Every structure is written in structure tokens, then in C-alpha cells.
């Protein structure tokens, strides 16, 4: 057993005691507690023929992983690569070109990291273990997001969630291997398009952070992950729901929040399979978030035989949406799907109702917010949004997090806060487990077999390291958001073919 392994085992043992001494301890931050709290099948169920408990088996998995990645600069460890049978759990009838066998399919098999990074020794001296944060936390004029910045209301809770996770970790002793506190290095990405790239470079080379959490805007996210790839640093995304974020084949990138593809599939199923609409229109922001967010709604509608009747774009922060709404009204749409920020979405809804348009209103997760209800008032009643998780699940971890967050910041945690808390805890867990080596931090995150259990629920990572956890619908009822699963509303779904698409024949075979 190498030093790292011994240390990890020690951490895991200590964790059992420490876990209960704190108000909030994410299950996977302390391995034994994790197993006790999250093993739905019971923690003492034998996991294999050797009679190991699930906890012991998980620990053994981690130990094997750490042994495997303890290699020199020229060796590539033989690690089990994740394989998905279907990309993003897509139903057959919403897959692209489903009547044609494609020549090649991507993202079904996990990519390896084959570089020499695992051999870089842990530094002898560090004052703090730095983890980077990058997000929209300062108001500015941003080309990326379509003019005046508008995402600070999302980014600041994200920062708070990350800070809380760091504080929790430091209360538990920081980087326990060497008794060194964690430090959050905070950057703003809300500048001119591309500012995120400069910030990540600075964090990677100047600040020498070990991993980075952040970005919400899709444009900044793509810029950031390209830098992460070249600088070879793990990047955890907790707030960008752009499906293309993960469709880039970068081994260093993780996402712990359900994306617009998953929420789009659920909305499409609800619109057509459950409600039976046939004429749906789209109103979206004229920026990257709006453009890419509605892709699965648009494509899914067409693939289910109900092409979107009309798609209208508007300038972010506009005051008058009458032109777009008139066009939608003239198109006789039965329902309107909005993709953009809460403020715009609420104003659009109000103007719709003022024009006498009473079509049901659907929207993206950004609209499932207090801000939306505040602006839309009673018009918000019955509005349905996609949502990446269920804040009303009654999960004990989340309730504890909610209480601590409210005590610390005086307000309810948003989805951005909760996912940032989870994402940061995933990074902290990886650092505690792998030590101060970026490639190994990546490895333990990427090759951990068991899903992470966070305050937002289970976080199973796909072959392309995306969150494949369940997504929900939020409906405004009595001035509050209520959350429903596919099962709650008995929403039909197309067949997800249980086929081995990694090794199946494609047109190229």
C-alpha cells in the first residue's frame, strides 16, 4: 500500500467520527458516512463473493484505483472506461436521424488521459490547497451574454455554495493529509467574451489551483474548458446547462447538474405525449443560452411529428416583446415555450396575458425562481419549467444544507448554490483522495464507480462525465414552485433501447 492509500484509509476512518460532529457532511465527503447514508440497498449487503460489505467494496474500489494511477510519466494506467448504451439516455424516437445508422457515434465511451501528469510529485510546501472559482459575480457589459451582464443573480449564489463547501471542509481539518486549509481563489467571468479564458490561465499558472469550479454562461464555459484541457486541470461545472458543454471530448471536464437536453426531453414528452399539443411556439433569448437551450425542444418536437410552428428571438433585457408575441398569436400556437432569463420570461408572460394570449406557458429552469413569480404575479400560476433536481425531496442532506445556508446568508439557497456546494464537495473529495496532483484528481473523479450523493440527489456521471441524474418539472402553484418527477405525473417516454451501442455495428463496420 502506498503512502497515498494509507492516508486515504486514515481519512476514511476519521471521517466516521467527524461526520456526525458537523451539521452538514455530504455523504461522499467522508467515505464511511457516505455509505451509511446513501446506500439505498442497505450498507451491509454483501457486495461480492468475498463477503465484503458495500462500504468495504467501495473502499476497495478506490484503493485499486489509486494503485492503478500510481504510474510514471510514460505509463498509462489500465482503467475501466465507462460505456453508455445510449447517449444521454435518449429515447429512440428523439434521436437524430433515427432511421439511419450513423457512420460513427460519439460520447459513448469514456476518454482516457494519456499524458504524463500523474507522475508530477506533490509539492513539498503549500500554504493552502487552492481551488479556483469562476463565475458571473460582478456586473459588467458582456458581449458573451448579450449586452449588460445579467447573470450575477445566478453566479453569486453559486459562489456562496462553493464557499460553504470550502468552509465545511476546513472545519473538518482542511486537506487532512497535511493539515492544510483549503482556499477558494475567486474570479469573475462576466467580462468581455473570452475573459474566462484569461482567468483560468491565471488560476492554472499563477495561482496554481488544483481544480476549478464554475461558469454558467455557455460561451464562457466553452472557453474555460479549452483552457482546462491545455493546462491540464480538472474543471467542475455546476451551473451551465448547455448540452454542448460536455459534447467536446475533454477528459478534464465534469458537470454535476442536469442539462437542457435532459430537461428538454422531459418537457417535450410532457407537451406532446402527456398533454397532446400539436402546435407549439418558442420564444427565446437572442444569445447562446437561448439558441442552444431550445435545441432539444425544437428537435424533439420535429422528431415526434410536431415541428415548432414559430421560433422568435428577443434581445436580452428588452422591454417590448409585442412584435414577437403578435407573430406567435397569429400562428395560432397552443402553447409557448420560453428559454431565457427569469426577468425576461416574466415580462414576456405578462405582456402575453395583457394581449389576451392565454396559451399555457412553459419555460427553462432559470424561470423557476422567486424573481419570476415576483414579476409575473398571478400570471405565474400554472407556469411549468424544466428543473435539474428536486429541492422538495425532503432529503436530509439538503435540508441541513438549506438551514446552514439560510443561517449564513439569510436567504434560501438557489439551484446554483446547491449544485455548487455539491460540485465543490466532489472536488474536495477528489483532492482528499488523490492528493495534490491534477491528473490524479481527475482520475478519481472520472473513474469512481459509485454515483456521488450530494444535497441535490444522486450524481451518476455518464461516459462523457455528465450528470445523468433525474430531472424534474416545476409548476407554480399558489405563488410557489412545486416539483414533480416523470413518475409523479405519469409522463410517457419513448423507448430507450437497451442496446450496446459501443460495440454494436455502425455503418463504418
Amino acid at each position, binding site marked *: 500500500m502506498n503512502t497515498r492509500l494509507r492516508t486515504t484509509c486514515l481519512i476514511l476512518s476519521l471521517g466516521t467520527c467527524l461526520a456526525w460532529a458537523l451539521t452538514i457532511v455530504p455523504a461522499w465527503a467522508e467515505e464511511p458516512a457516505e455509505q451509511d447514508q446513501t446506500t439505498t440497498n442497505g450498507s451491509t449487503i454483501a457486495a461480492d463473493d468475498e463477503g465484503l460489505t458495500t462500504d468495504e467494496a467501495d473502499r476497495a474500489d478506490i484503493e485499486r484505483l489509486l494503485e492503478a494511477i500510481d504510474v510514471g510519466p*510514460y505509463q498509462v494506467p489500465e482503467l475501466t472506461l465507462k460505456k453508455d448504451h445510449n447517449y444521454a439516455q435518449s429515447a429512440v424516437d428523439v434521436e437524430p436521424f433515427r432511421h439511419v445508422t450513423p457512420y460513427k457515434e*460519439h460520447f459513448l465511451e469514456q476518454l482516457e488521459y494519456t499524458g504524463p501528469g500523474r507522475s508530477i510529485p506533490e509539492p513539498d510546501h503549500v500554504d493552502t490547497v487552492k481551488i479556483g472559482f469562476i463565475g458571473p459575480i460582478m456586473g459588467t457589459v458582456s458581449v458573451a451574454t448579450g449586452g449588460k451582464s445579467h447573470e450575477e443573480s445566478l453566479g453569486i449564489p453559486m459562489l456562496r455554495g462553493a464557499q460553504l463547501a470550502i468552509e465545511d471542509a476546513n472545519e473538518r481539518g482542511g486537506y487532512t493529509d497535511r493539515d492544510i486549509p483549503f482556499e477558494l481563489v475567486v474570479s469573475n467571468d462576466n467580462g468581455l467574451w473570452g475573459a474566462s*479564458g484569461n482567468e483560468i490561465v491565471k488560476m492554472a499558472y499563477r495561482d496554481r489551483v488544483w481544480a476549478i469550479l464554475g461558469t454558467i454562461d455557455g460561451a464562457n464555459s466553452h*472557453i474555460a474548458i479549452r483552457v482546462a484541457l491545455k493546462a491540464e486541470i480538472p474543471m467542475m461545472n455546476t451551473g451551465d446547462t448547455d448540452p*454542448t458543454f460536455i*459534447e467536446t471530448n475533454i477528459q478534464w471536464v465534469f458537470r454535476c447538474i442536469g442539462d437542457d437536453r435532459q430537461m428538454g426531453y422531459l418537457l417535450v414528452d410532457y407537451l406532446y405525449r402527456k398533454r397532446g399539443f400539436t402546435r407549439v411556439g418558442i420564444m427565446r433569448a437572442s444569445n447562446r443560452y437561448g439558441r442552444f437551450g431550445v435545441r432539444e425542444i425544437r428537435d424533439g418536437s420535429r422528431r415526434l411529428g410536431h415541428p415548432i410552428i414559430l421560433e422568435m428571438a428577443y434581445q436580452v433585457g428588452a422591454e417590448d416583446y409585442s412584435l414577437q408575441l403578435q407573430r406567435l398569436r397569429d400562428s395560432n400556437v397552443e402553447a409557448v415555450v420560453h428559454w431565457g432569463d427569469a426577468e425576461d420570461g416574466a415580462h414576456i408572460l405578462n405582456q402575453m396575458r395583457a394581449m389576451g394570449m392565454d396559451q399555457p406557458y412553459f419555460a427553462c429552469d432559470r424561470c423557476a425562481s422567486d424573481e419570476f413569480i415576483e414579476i409575473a404575479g398571478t400570471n405565474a400560476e400554472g407556469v411549468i419549467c424544466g428543473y435539474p433536481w428536486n429541492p422538495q425531496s425532503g432529503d436530509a442532506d439538503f435540508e441541513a444544507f438549506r438551514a446552514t445556508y439560510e443561517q449564513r446568508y439569510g436567504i434560501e439557497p438557489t439551484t446554483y448554490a446547491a449544485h455548487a456546494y455539491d460540485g465543490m464537495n466532489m472536488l474536495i473529495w477528489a483532492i482528499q483522495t488523490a492528493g495534490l496532483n491534477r491528473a490524479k484528481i481527475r482520475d478519481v473523479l472520472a473513474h469512481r464507480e459509485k454515483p456521488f450523493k450530494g444535497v441535490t440527489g444522486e450524481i451518476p456521471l455518464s461516459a462523457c462525465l455528465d450528470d445523468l441524474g433525474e430531472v424534474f418539472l416545476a409548476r407554480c402553484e399558489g405563488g410557489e414552485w412545486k416539483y414533480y418527477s416523470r413518475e409523479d405525473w405519469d409522463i410517457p417516454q419513448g423507448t430507450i433501447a437497451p442496446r450496446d451501442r459501443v460495440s454494436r455495428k455502425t455503418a463504418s463496420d
Partner: protein
Amino acid sequence: MASSAYCRRLEAVLFAGLLLAATPAARGSEKSEKVAAGDSPAQSVPDKQKQIATEASNMPFVYTKWEQFTTKDGLPNDHIFAVKVFGDYVWVGTEDGLARLNKKTREIKCWREEDGLPWRVVGAIDVHPKTDEVWLGLFGGGLARFSGGRFDHWHQLNSGLVNDVVYGVAIEHDNVWAATTAGASRYNTVTGEWSIFTEKNAPMEEIWNYGVCYADGLVYLGVWGSGVLEYNVERGTWKDYLDPDGEMEIDLYRDDGIMHVITTGVSYVDQTLWAASYFGVGRYDGRHWRCFFAHESGLPSDFTNAVKGRSAHEAWFATDKGLGVLADFGTDTWVTYTSDHDAHKGKAVVQRGEKIIAEFETMLNLPHNYVLWVEFDGDDAWIGTSKGLGHAIGECYFPRLRNEKQIAQAIRDAIIFRDATLHRDATVREPVANAEMQNSE
């Protein structure tokens, strides 16, 4: 310049390997046997001549002579992002400094931030052929010019450079193009004028530029999320190359267009465009696209960091699992180079499509199999990897496949070499043979 005798002997070594590889067992299997003395069937050479000629006529040039440079040799850092050959110098961009290798004296000179280099990470290099000025794309530090022992620095706050994260640099006439993470910038070194190209004035669906090259009046940009863009310098017009299926998760038809919109590198030579991506590679001849993937070719991996075209027929691809060389496009003939550093040896695999024709053990070739850059230097090539700089020495290099005259001579030499080798009861393993040849030079 390599001597004729040396070249003949080198060929003899390779052909002797073919003699041994051309056994019934080897021919009957999809993968050939490894070329090694222990496998010798000792069959009659004359009986095999026809077959060998057939095999040999299909053989590309294989680089068997290599050398490596690392920090031990004086490089400032082993993580090599860019290489540019100009005259007697090889300019090397690393994660922590710029280096200049003098090919004649073997001296390596380095510049770090404390020496005036504006930023430590040098991600791209080009040299202005008119002025010999060295232009550096600094990864997170903007654009720099090294001239007269001095660095001049352009960045977002003092120039028209659209972003400081520069991935590619190319010289076009008096212009310097910079491919940045937020668009492309063009700087006229004579007038001082800057031009910026983004989604507002170019067909960039996304603006995340990755690579840039110039040749024959055309500037090509490899754009992450926007395929390849072609800029006609004379006309000032743009043309885009996008994946026709429009989907990220599939390639519907192989050769219907570029393989993917997330492109990482471009190279234009002999009116042929070569493109790289993390999803395979492609070639465009002005009319047709032909794409290649790892499962059906000698491309070591679909994850391709960079590409350099040598001609319309030959291109080298820097992947995360080795170096893939499409040696002859017309016959789909590849040579794949990988190294086993722990065993201090390398391997060159010759493939036609997905079928392996021959495998050669070589001396240590790539410094590391994670390859980041390729640069040609006459018949030689320089390879940037994540753990050092490699130098492939192309003595006796020939393009595409061997011609008949070369084959006839090579077979005659091979017979002599093989007989002599077998009589000595020695191996014909390439590292040994190469070492002998190097010594005999």
C-alpha cells in the same frame, strides 16, 4: 545529406524485415508478425522476390532514426506546445518558456519571463520570412514579437488583439494572424492596423479559434464549434466548412463534409486542406472531403491535437496516443509511431486502411506518446510532445511509396544483408541495425 551507401543499407534493413515478414503465416493473418530474427522461416529468397516486390512497392518511408530533447538537454520545459523551424534554428514553445535549438551546434538557448518573455506559456510560433522576426502566440499572454533580442508585446489592453488566449499564429504577407479564444485578429506589421474577426463579420457560429495557417492566398481557421473557415485574402471573402449532419453526437455519413465542427488544427498545402479534431481527421481537395477515424486507419486515436500537411498526399497527425502519419493518401497507407519509453524502444506500424502490413521495432522514437505538435524540416520532422521534443531524421526519405528502381535495388541489398545477418546468427531488429549504421557513418 545522407550518403547513398547509408540509404541503401537502411533500405536493406527494412527489406530484410519484409523478407522475414512475408511468410505464409504472416500473409494469412490480418496482422503481420513482428519483424524479428527469431521468426525467420529461412525460405529461399529468390522465390520470394516477386512477392516482396509487391509488398515493398506498397511500403512507405519509415522513420527509424530519432533523437529526443528534454530539459536534460537544456529545454526550459518538457511540455512542448509549438515548434517552428526556420533556417538553422528550431524554435520551441513550451509551457514555461521559449527555446531555440541551433541544429548545427546543438546549442539550446532559452528565454523565460525573467528574460523578458512576456508570458511563460508559448503556444504558437511562426517566423516572418521577410524579416526573420519570430512571432509568438502566448497562451493567456497575448502576442509577442521577438526581434533583435527584444520582445514586443501586444495584448487585449494595448492593441486590437481580441483575446490574450492565443492558440495559433500564422504569417500572411505583412500580416500576422492570431487565432484566439474569442475570435481571430490580424495585425498589419507595416501599417500597424488591426482587424478583428468574430461572429459579427465572419461566419463563425462560435468564435473559439484554435488553429490558423496560410498558403496560396488562403487563410484557414480551425474553429472549435465552427468547423473550418477559409478566408480569401485577395477577395476578403469567407467560406465555411461545417459538418452537414449538424449533430455533435454522431457522424451520419463519413465523407459528407468535415468530420466534426469542433476542429483543433488546420494545414493547407498543395491546394489540399488537412483538418484535425477530437473526433477524427479529414482531408479536403477542393471538391471532396475524406475523413479518417482511428478504428479504420493508422490514426492512433481520434483525439487529435494538431495536424501538419506535407503534401496533398501526406499529413502527420499529433494524437494523444501516438503520431499518425498518412504517408500516401491514394493508397490509404499509414505509418503509426509509438514509443515504449520504459523499454527504450519504439514501434512503427505500417497499415493500409485498418489492415496492418508490417511492424517495425525502432529505436526510441517519440519522447512521449501524447503528441501536441508536428513541424517539417526538409526530410526531417520535429515532434512536440508533453514530455519532450522529438526529431525524426529523414535520411533517404522518399514521398508516398517506393518506386520500382528503389525496390529492385533494395531487394538486391536486402538479400545480401539478410544472408549476412542470418549467417551471423544475429537479429535484424531495427534498433541494432540502426545503431550499426550510425556507427559506421
